[in-house]
């Protein structure tokens, strides 16, 4: 299973889906959770509510300003990976939605912790797509 192979870490589990992140993202996530300033607290609460909605509901009531499919990237073998972003104030979590062991799973692979503009960071998203492709085997004929 991908999560065991790649050392992905589960940060939320629900009735409908799970959220896993890479170790690098987990460090950023932990830094956010540890923050006690006003901005960090707003970001923490917002991100936590969005992730919970994603995990608990088959059809989450998340709008495009909260969770959006930003772009798709070719990852080889004629495959593409769609990159989605959770947007909690200036904090962005980029990743992809895959099915792991039959479970709907968001894999978070990049964080932009201090987004200056609302426009998604294309380089960061492309790097996320490549990392997720490498972890999941998408693009190399494995699943």
């Amino acid at each position, binding site marked *: 299973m991908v999560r065991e192979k790649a050392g992905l870490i589960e940060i939320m589990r629900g009735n409908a889906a799970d959220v896993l992140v890479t170790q690098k993202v987990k460090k950023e996530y932990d830094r956010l959770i540890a923050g*006690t300033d*006003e901005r960090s*607290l*707003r970001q923490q*609460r*917002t991100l936590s*509510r*969005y992730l919970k*909605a994603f995990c608990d509901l088959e*059809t989450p*009531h*998340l*709008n*495009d*300003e*909260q969770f959006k499919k930003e772009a798709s990237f070719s990852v080889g073998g004629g495959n593409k990976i769609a990159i989605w972003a959770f*947007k*909690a*104030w200036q904090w962005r979590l980029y990743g992809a939605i895959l099915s792991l062991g039959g479970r709907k799973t968001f894999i978070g692979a990049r964080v932009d912790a201090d987004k200056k503009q609302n426009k998604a960071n294309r380089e960061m998203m492309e790097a996320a797509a490549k990392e997720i492709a490498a972890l999941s085997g998408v693009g190399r004929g494995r699943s």
Partner: protein
Amino acid sequence: MTKSLKRIPAKEEIFAEEDLVIDVQFLLQELLNDKQINRAQLASMTGLSRARLSQLMRSDANPTLRTLARVFHALGEELFVTTKKRRDDAAKLLKADAPPWTSVANDGVWEHFSEVDTGWVRRYAADTIVDMDDVPPAAGSTTVLEAA
């Protein structure tokens, strides 16, 4: 001269603010999904620009009560304002006022309940029974059989 200090809100206060904004945004998105209304249509229905609606949906949104009333009214909905404590108290009162029902038989398919006040007997599909005190049965799952 005293320098004014910016008040720093407590963690719980910040979470309460974020929760209320997110609850309203989730409810609005749920209604839009249910009614199959897109942003362009909502903009036309409310007279608000798409940019303003987008701003309303962001995590840093701070919509006025008037804007919210306008949006929900355009969707044919009315926001009902209360506090969690008042809502819970009202639910407790309703529960206390509800007439007692007693399970009198269960054959595995139907469970029969008798209403103490009236003597009427009702049957519910046994597998739909959750908790008579807390969860009303789904519409259509109840049949009034007979007066005792």
